[in-house]
């Protein structure tokens, strides 16, 4: 089948937009850590661009999108064998499909890094994301988008399950080995640069249009729908988070507002092309509140998911996946249109993903902890990872 130039243009620019989310994430996370860990935190995002990109074209793509079985793809496209300039996937070149999907494979493990800033060894982080990309991401991606057992069952337009629930859950699981930052709970560990975090969420939103609307894989009406829902839901979530915070603790913080927007982006991801704009409004409002509550809960439970990967991506992703089962009305039907079966499928998909990602992450974490060690020494943590892991200081005269 011949490619369609307009679809190709759209997926190409969408791929670039998704890659651009990585600097956005680096800013978002980097702004929230202390000065002594900013480069370390940003490098978590940046190095994922290299490590996973290479892994993806060597083997990841084949495992995720090769024919394979219900669980995982095969090895037929290892090193991109069997694909050439004229291979097509739908109406776009296969090379372009590979790139677009590769961007998703990159950002997912990078999201996890927010939970563990300031205390993971850099080389162990690299090993972790490389293993995680093969053991967790590739299979789950195959299940949902690559022809596996969830394909055509659970709805996941742009990665609520594949990207956000896997990363959110794994973030939490990894804390089993990395514990708290020193001083967590005693001292206020303040974000060293909130302007970075705001700017970061701006970049993320911008890139997310590629993430969600690009997932239509064509410049068509569905892309248009996914775009407008990705416009509305984060706007609503930003407001509802802000309202909750303003009522609850008296001031609307910039950090909170930025987090609310992110929660909305996450929550609309699974349903972006399946729900109406007004449903997106609802999903956004709900996600802002739910994630706010989830982050508050952390305070009570006392674990140190430092930048709230679980509270935002995990909880936001689950919220979005379930609400997709409720509100779906475009090209699929959800609970509100009487299809309660879809909601059950969504719940099933969520549970399976949580269990799978959680268990595998604990296994990977365990192995790495015993072999290379995951956590830096207390003194390294005190001094900061920029100096101890990278030999640098971010800011100088």
């Amino acid at each position: 089948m011949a490619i369609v130039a307009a679809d190709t243009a759209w997926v190409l620019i969408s791929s670039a937009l998704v890659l651009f989310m990585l600097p956005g994430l680096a800013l978002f996370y980097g702004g929230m850590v202390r000065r002594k860990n900013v480069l370390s935190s940003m490098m978590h995002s940046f190095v994922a661009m290299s490590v996973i990109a290479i892994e993806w074209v060597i083997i990841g793509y084949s495992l995720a999108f090769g024919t394979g079985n219900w669980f995982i793809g095969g090895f037929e496209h290892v090193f991109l064998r069997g694909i050439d300039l004229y291979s097509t996937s739908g109406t776009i070149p296969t090379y372009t499909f590979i790139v677009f999907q590769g961007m998703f494979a990159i950002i997912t493990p990078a999201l996890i890094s927010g939970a563990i800033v300031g205390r993971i060894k850099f080389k162990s982080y690299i090993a972790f994301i490389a293993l995680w990309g093969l053991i967790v991401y590739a299979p789950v991606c195959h299940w949902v988008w690559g022809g596996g057992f969830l394909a055509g069952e659970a709805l996941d337009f742009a990665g609520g399950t594949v990207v956000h629930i896997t990363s959110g859950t794994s973030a939490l699981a990894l804390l089993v080995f990395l514990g708290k930052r020193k001083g967590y709970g005693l001292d206020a560990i303040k974000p060293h640069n909130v302007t970075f975090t705001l700017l970061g969420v701006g970049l993320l939103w911008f890139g997310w249009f590629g993430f969600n609307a690009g997932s239509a894989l064509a410049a068509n009406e569905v892309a248009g729908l996914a775009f407008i829902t990705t416009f509305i839901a984060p706007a609503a979530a930003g407001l509802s988070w802000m309202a909750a915070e303003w009522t609850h603790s008296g001031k609307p913080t910039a950090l909170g507002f930025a987090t609310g927007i992110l929660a909305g982006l996450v929550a609309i991801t699974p349903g972006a092309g399946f729900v109406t704009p007004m449903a997106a409004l609802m999903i956004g409002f709900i996600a802002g509140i739910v994630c706010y509550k989830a982050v508050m809960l952390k305070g009570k439970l006392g674990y140190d998911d430092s930048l709230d990967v679980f509270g935002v991506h995990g909880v936001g992703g689950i919220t979005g996946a379930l609400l997709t089962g409720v509100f779906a009305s475009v090209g699929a039907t959800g609970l509100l249109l009487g299809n309660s079966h879809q909601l059950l499928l969504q719940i099933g998909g969520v549970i399976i993903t949580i269990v799978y990602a959680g268990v595998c992450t604990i296994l990977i974490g365990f192995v790495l902890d015993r072999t290379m060690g995951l956590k830096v020494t207390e003194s390294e943590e005190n001094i900061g990872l920029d100096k101890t892991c990278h030999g640098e200081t971010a800011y100088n005269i």
Partner: protein
Amino acid sequence: MKYVIAIIRPERLDAVKRELQKVEVNRLTVTSVSGYGAQKGHLEVYRALEYEVNLLEKIKLDIAVNDEFLEPTIEAIQRGAKTNEKGEIGDGKIFVLPLEDVIRISTGEIGSEAI
């Protein structure tokens, strides 16, 4: 000669500078510092969680003065640094240290006239 160190609120810097100008103390050095003391740290909220922040931003002034200028300097700082008439906790402190010698680099002047 005295070496006066004053810790004040950042938002009072302009007022203090104006008051010092009035008493013709027009030399000083400013440093951004943070500190705590009687002023209770306040709660700040980070993403739905409250934390106590106790290091507060302050401004430190270093002013070397000849003895006859000490009183006016201290009074000027007090006038400028008070948040309001009665003063608030956290308005700051003034420390007076002995100063043995001053050298002005450009001219080589020494002592009182170098200040």
